[in-house]
């Protein structure tokens, strides 16, 4: 066992797939940043709001005013440098830090996709992605290696497999499989799609999509790994992601996943891709084909493998942390994020905050749009940690306005996956008595229903 592990970590493979992955990743990230800017989202999401919802423990990460644009420029430049493989290590570290900083600024915008990019760029820091077909390797033949350790490519495959497989596991619940929720709500609203619009109105389509989506997520990593099913699986990847792109506002993610899935193909395919790129840009690819094995100091190698191993153990464990909470996960969302739970819920809320002056008994209601953007208000109204943070923000705000002895209450309702809305937070609990923590939030009212499954 030990011998085969050592043997595995000492085996080498062609570096071309990782080089193609690096190029694709860098270009798509650059495109994402440009698209984000062109959509006016930097302004809308990070400059306009007066208040930002922080992640627990990361309250110090805030937008930087107009310098937020600079942050995006740095992030975009870093992505470009990653793509061309110039000063790769610095570039990918810069990308990881700037991108993660952007994501931590406001959890309103949390998406699993962004989290995926963050952790993927983290793991890329430890991979020799610039050893082949990169500017670094071109300029310094001492850094050029055509062969890299096998695990360097396998760990990207593993990460992709985790994303898909866990997303599939999360679909093993009664709402998704038995009630075809939330697709049964979402699909009929796509009535104006060309060709597909009428079909989307049919109930069986929601069931078909739910079940095939679940099977796709659970099986696709294995079908991609297995050589004989690989090509068909890749076609499925394209169809699946393009379909999600057509049906949902899902941004760049489908393209990222399609390009990422190329890593499962053999080096031969990647050499063809690189040949193509070489001919476009007049690059002499043979210069990289040196058959040299990637060399690393033993200490560094040990450290790298240790970091990567810890990283994956965490990734495998983190999505299960919801088991530590006893209440319905979809209702409380305690342990929901960072777990590849994608598109599982149609959830919306209504939250009206009441500020009470405990001395005089005077009360007034808060107009949420005075403080939050519509998007923030939407996200806040069904997530307990947002509600709590906002209550504290309101208290701070009204204290500054001269009110003392403030209490903050919320009357809130949440509707989940087509169920009639129900009261969400105890209306008679002063939210200021609670601080955010990882403990169960006792002010969340019971769900009074059961969603069976994982």
């Amino acid at each position, binding site marked *: 066992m030990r011998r085969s592990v050592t043997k595995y970590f000492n085996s080498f493979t062609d570096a071309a797939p990782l080089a193609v992955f690096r190029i694709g990743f860098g270009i798509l990230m650059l495109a994402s940043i440009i698209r984000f800017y062109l959509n006016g989202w930097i302004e809308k999401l990070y400059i306009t709001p007066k208040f930002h919802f922080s992640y627990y423990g990361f309250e110090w990460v805030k937008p930087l005013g107009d310098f937020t644009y600079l942050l995006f420029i740095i992030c975009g430049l870093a992505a470009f440098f990653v793509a061309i493989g110039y000063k790769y290590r610095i570039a990918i570290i810069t990308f990881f830090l700037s991108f993660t900083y952007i994501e931590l600024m406001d959890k309103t915008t949390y998406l699993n996709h962004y989290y995926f990019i963050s952790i993927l760029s983290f793991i890329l820091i430890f991979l020799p992605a610039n050893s082949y077909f990169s500017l670094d390797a071109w300029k310094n033949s001492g850094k050029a290696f055509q062969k890299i350790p096998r695990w360097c490519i396998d760990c990207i495959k593993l990460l992709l497999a985790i994303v898909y497989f866990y997303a599939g596991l999360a679909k093993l619940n009664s709402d998704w499989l038995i009630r075809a929720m939330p697709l049964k709500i979402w699909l009929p609203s796509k009535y104006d799609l060309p060709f597909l619009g009428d079909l989307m109105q049919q109930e069986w389509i929601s069931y078909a999509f739910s079940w095939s989506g679940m099977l796709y997520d659970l099986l696709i990593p294995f079908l991609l790994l297995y050589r004989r099913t690989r090509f068909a699986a890749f076609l499925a990847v394209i169809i699946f992601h*393009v379909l999600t792109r057509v049906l949902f506002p899902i941004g760049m993610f489908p393209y990222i996943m399609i390009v990422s899935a190329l890593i499962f193909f053999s080096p031969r395919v990647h050499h063809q891709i690189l040949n193509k790129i070489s001919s476009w840009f007049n690059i002499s690819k043979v210069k990289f084909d040196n058959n040299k094995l990637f060399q690393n100091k033993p200490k560094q190698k040990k450290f790298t493998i240790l970091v990567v191993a810890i990283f994956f153990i965490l990734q495998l464990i983190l999505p299960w942390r919801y088991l530590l909470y006893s209440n319905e996960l979809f209702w409380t969302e305690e342990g929901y994020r960072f777990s590849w739970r994608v598109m599982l819920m149609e959830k*919306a809320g209504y939250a009206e905050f009441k500020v009470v002056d405990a001395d005089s008994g005077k009360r*007034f209601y808060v107009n949420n749009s005075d403080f939050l953007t519509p998007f923030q208000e939407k996200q806040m109204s069904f997530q307990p940690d947002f509600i709590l943070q906002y209550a504290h923000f309101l208290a701070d705000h009204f204290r500054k306005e001269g009110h003392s002895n403030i209490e903050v209450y919320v009357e809130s309702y949440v509707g989940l996956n087509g169920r009639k809305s129900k009261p969400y937070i105890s209306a008679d609990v002063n939210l200021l008595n609670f601080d955010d923590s990882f403990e169960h939030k006792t002010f969340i009212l019971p769900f009074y229903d059961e969603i069976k499954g994982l």
Partner: protein
Amino acid sequence: MKKISRILILASLIFTACSSENDGAESNENGVDTFDRGAMLANWADNIIAPSFNNFKSTTQQLEDLTLAFTLNPSEENLIALRNQFESSYVNFQTVAMFDIGKAEELSYRRFLNTYPLATSDVENKIASGSYNLELPSSFKEQGFPALDYLLNGLGETDADIVAKYSAENYKNYLLDVSKRINSLTEEVNSSWQGDYRDTFVSGTSSSSTGSVDRFTNKYIMYYETFLRSGKIGYPAGAFTGTPSPINVEAYYSADLSKKLYLQAIKTTQDFFNGKYFNSSSTGMSYKQYLEFLDRGDLADDILSQFGTINSQAINLNDSFKSQVETNNTLMLVAFDELQKEVVLLKLDMVQALSISINYVDSDGD
């Protein structure tokens, strides 16, 4: 093999590119088991919105005519005739107030016609000076029905006192200008519905946030929450502050008008939900039918039964909300609570069932 995948990628990209546009015209020609939003929009426009505006327009014309008659000959008789017309026009205004879309939105129609409480002292100042421009947004609080309410009811104790005020040219001019402005703005909005805008509205069948259904539903719910719940009941009852505020009552200076306005507003909202034609017992497609199509008849029932509760609670309210607030505000707060329950049903449950986003912000989802 590579060729196939390349063609597939290309085809799918083209498909993606096409699909983000929308060609509203033909959403479903085979008509089986699909809900036709275009037909719903046509019902809204042709059987509800346009006829409501057309009817309201004739009442504002009457209002202007009778105002002219009164200013030419300020008598108690003419005052009473004008006041009656004012009351009926104000009630009819409740049948169009929620349609804040298209021309009405562009003109800030509702804000010019019905921003209250009136800035009484500003009105008096402008009448005294004789110089004013009612087209300025800064004059929202100095015109429309609240101004007529004051000018016809609030200027004196008795009708004789009020008529006496109209010996002054400045009062005549201001009164006439207010009536004319109500009429001319209504004319503009009405003709847009009888003309081009109707087609623009009905053809906006896209499922996106720019589609007519999404946009109007936002307006519908905003009207219900902000103008009906908060405006007519919440603010006067002090539901937000804990202190009742009679001055915030709609039609503050009229004796018994406020409840009529409230009831008409509820009726309009409820009829719209049911798809009921204006001034007719026929019904067409609207939210109720849409929810039923989506298997959410239960929710439609809940919404209607809550409308029922709101209506029966209103029986207990005084014809004058001013005296209701001053004598027994608890009943006003009960009304508010019932209205509030409907807000949750409409703004949360219905909107979720119809997959419409409220105050849409375009960003990616998972």
